[in-house]
């Protein structure tokens, strides 16, 4: 607490506290995230040309809406970064409970209305409870491990952590949203590894999972609608055209070659062959119009962003902070990986957006809030440095 950049001589203690800690704020991380958002805006502009013809500065414009959400997200990030993350871990169980309830609620509505919807429709805004549930689960896992010796060496604590993640992952899975449930397990895996899980335990659990997997699968198919699940697994069976999308996205990606076809020149996108080009398949649009080179730049930005997140975990003042940071890094990493993998046809089509780039408010705002939590950890790492 030695470095006060914007102090006012201690005359206004409350206002001084607002300006404290910004010297430790990770500007590189935020700049990287903003660069990704900028890439996203360019791509959304290009991808929306075929369906949006109005002016850019309009609430109907997808680019403009994305800018608004980015602003909301940045404001949220700044607010959260000034907020002690221990409040969040302290109320982690409450947040976790709310997350579970909202997932059950969406499942109930989904079954009666839309079947596979993942959204709450609140008039003009849509809220995706799984975005909230992801953060709540990260906080709950961090809280749990930070209270139990800060590690996952014991089988008992490992199993309990699994019990924490299983319900949310399961609820998301039956939405169905295979991608997000995998993200949940990846978060759990990242956290338990950093929390010191024994390799032998992990191997045994992995073996058990592989052994019971066929049974679980049969069970899932028996209990829930057959087609919907199989669509997730095998895109060729998709009656609604996911197979078509896979094919078109492959063509879009491959035809980009080294340098791409140029901004707004991707015929796959501009002629409407590539569906949801501004959302789940925005990476295909990137690949088509900016080629391998453009993709490498974006990969570089993601790697930089994630490494800054790892740095936050590295320098975190305590176990809770470290594990929260790890969870958020895993969250962004896995969402990116799954989304790009879907675009490159090495993963079944599933509704995971590309972090910071895909069009969509819920995801963008919650990602910036995640960055805010990381900033909160970075800004307080010295204050909570445990010795």
């Amino acid at each position, binding site marked *: 607490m030695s470095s006060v950049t914007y102090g006012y001589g201690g005359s206004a203690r409350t206002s001084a506290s607002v300006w404290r800690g910004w010297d430790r704020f990770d500007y590189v991380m935020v700049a990287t995230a903003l660069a990704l958002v900028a890439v996203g805006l360019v791509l959304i502009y290009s991808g929306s040309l075929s369906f949006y013809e109005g002016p850019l500065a309009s609430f109907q414009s997808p680019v403009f809406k994305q800018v608004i959400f980015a602003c909301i997200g940045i404001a949220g990030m700044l607010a959260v970064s000034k907020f002690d993350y221990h409040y969040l871990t302290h109320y982690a169980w409450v947040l976790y409970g709310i997350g579970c309830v909202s997932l059950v609620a969406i499942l109930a509505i989904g079954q009666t209305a839309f079947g596979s919807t993942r959204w709450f429709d609140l008039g003009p805004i849509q809220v995706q409870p799984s975005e909230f549930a992801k953060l709540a689960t990260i906080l709950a896992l961090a809280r749990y491990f930070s209270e139990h*010796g800060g590690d996952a060496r014991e089988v008992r604590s490992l199993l309990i952590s699994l019990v924490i993640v299983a319900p949310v992952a399961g609820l998301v899975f039956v939405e169905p949203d295979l991608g997000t449930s995998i993200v949940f397990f990846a978060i759990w895996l*990242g956290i338990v*590894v*950093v929390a010191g899980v024994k390799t032998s335990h992990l191997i045994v659990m992995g073996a058990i999972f592989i052994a019971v997997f066929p049974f679980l699968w049969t069970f899932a198919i028996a209990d829930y609608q057959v087609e919907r699940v199989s669509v997730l697994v095998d895109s060729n069976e998709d009656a609604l055209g996911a197979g078509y999308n896979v094919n078109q996205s*492959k*063509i879009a990606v*491959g*035809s980009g070659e080294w340098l791409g076809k140029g901004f707004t020149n991707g015929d796959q996108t501009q002629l409407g062959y590539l569906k949801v080009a501004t959302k789940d398949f925005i990476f295909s649009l990137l690949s088509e119009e900016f080629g391998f080179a453009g993709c490498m730049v974006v990969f570089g930005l993601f790697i930089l962003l994630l490494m800054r997140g790892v740095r936050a975990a590295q320098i975190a003042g305590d176990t809770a902070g470290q594990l929260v940071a790890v969870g958020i890094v*895993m969250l962004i990493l896995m969402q990116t*990986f799954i989304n790009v993998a879907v675009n490159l046809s090495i993963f079944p089509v599933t509704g995971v957006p590309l972090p910071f780039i895909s069009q969509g408010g819920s995801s963008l705002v919650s990602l910036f809030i995640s960055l805010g939590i990381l900033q909160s950890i970075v800004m307080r790492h010295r204050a909570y440095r445990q010795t």
Partner: protein
Amino acid sequence: MSILDEGFRAPGGTSRNRPHGNMAVLRIAILVAFVVLGARLAKMQIVDGAEYAQRSRENHIVQKNILPTRGLITDRNGEPLVENVGVYSAQILPQLLPEKETDRYQIYLKIQSLLGVSPVETKARVDDAIAAGKDYIAITVANNLPKEKALALDEASVDMPGVSLAITPGREYIGGEEFSHILGYIGPQFAEDAARLKGQNYQLNEPIGKDGLEKQYESDLRGTAGFTAVEQDAYGRQIQALQSRDPVPGNSLKLAIDAGLQKYIGELLQDSLPDTTGVWGDATVAAAVVMDPFTGEILAMNSVPTYDNNIWAESKDRSDELDRLVHDEKTHTLLNKALSAAAPGSTFKLVTASAGLEEGNVTANTTRYIPKTLEFKGENGELYPLEDWRQHGTISLIDAIAWSSNIYMFEIAGGLPQERIPGLGKDPETSAVILASWARNFGFGQPTGIDLEGEASGRIPTPDWKRRIFSGPEFNPSDREWFIADTYFTAIGQGSVLATPLQVTRMTAAIANGGKLVTPHIVDSVIAPDGTTVRKIETSYRDVGLKKSTIDTVRQGMWGSVNYGAGARANIPQAVVAGKTGTAEFFKPDGTKSQHAWFTGYAPFDNPEVVVTVYFDIGVGGDKAAPTAAKILEYYFDHVKR
């Protein structure tokens, strides 16, 4: 202390621990994840990039082909024999049908009400196509729609996604049934030919010539397909035209055929089929060929009975009729009789006489006494009666041709050993070989090379041929032996001799034109769409190898036949006709004896202009074929302008 800073104090004391995690694992995981994605991306964009780029172009650039207009066919005077018409059919592209089965069924029901096609059948075909993974290929549900149905479908298809009206080029043959054998027909490609045709840049929906001139001159008639390349979006909307090439219409054919003559002969032959003598019964088939002896131009070529070749295009509606036609075992109507082989009978005596004159064992003035029956001693020493059709008395070679003496011809070909009359060779076998070689000089036993497919070669028997044919274990050794009787029968165009009316015509033409064996052709010239001549079918011929004296003698015999002999009924007032009758005995499938009626001749005698050959499967040459030929020649001289 504010909640904004590190002011949180957990109730119940601190639970903070020193972090001890190893971040290296996390860093490696991040790098591995992006390396995996980067490798896959490199494979898709760099290794396979060009292929995907090609697929991307194919995706949105739709090339639509424009089929060319097929060339027309006219007779020698420009009378059109074919018309190009549009063939309307209803098509379903399963890919574009609605998702829901109930919606699809509504469409099937609508098709039923419009076109009368059962919805069950439509559904089965669509489902089969989808099951076979071929939902992107259009199915034809109904073909040859009448115009009003086609229009109704076109209107209704707006509300029926996946259903469309297809128009493919078709032909209407307007010349009449008399032209069916010559013109042939066009039709859709067979699946087994599609791959080969694709190599020749054929479109799948492009019809091809299936028979007759339509097939023979396919490459001329077809033309060159054009195309338009259009950029199209994912919803099938056309964004912009990229490129186009107009189709080039096919070349037209101008035939040597005179349409009036062709029609006249067709009706004449049909009317002449019934028997007038009450002896042999009605003829079932007939053929006639009229040819320019110098150029080989076919002025008319008929085969009776004939059929309407529009039936192929209307095969769905006329399936019973077509079925009868295809399985017609009695008259084999689809077969062109002018190109089918039958025993040529006495017309072949022109070959035998020419051979004798050329080989020198007979001259124009060689006179012989020819009885009605000649006792002849065979190889085994037994006596056989050789029959002639009348008591000829002492006659010359010219009279033997004119009166069509069998025994005279026997003696030319095989000689008469008992009276030391020499044959063509030293023994019956050699004689037969020499006769056969002259027959081949006259074009027998081989296709004439006319510009039509399906021509029979005919047959000229030789000792070698007999040994080969009867070589099987089921035959006796004596079956393979060549007897003098075999030579005799060959000499009068019977036994195993087979020839087509066209071959006989060519033979007569060679006599008429001074010894040239011309290649007959039906097409006179190929005409470009702008009216210029692409190419004229040139006359080609080879020399038969006859001396002028031989030709003169044979001509005199033919003159005699028409002017005082067996072919007198071919005489006409318009010109002096020379000809030869033929009456060839054969056994009908039921075993009874019958005979073919032939006449072949040319006119005018001094200045030959036209050769005509008439064939009836049943009848007598002089009574049935000769008067028919006379009518044809009369028509020719009265109506055909050359």
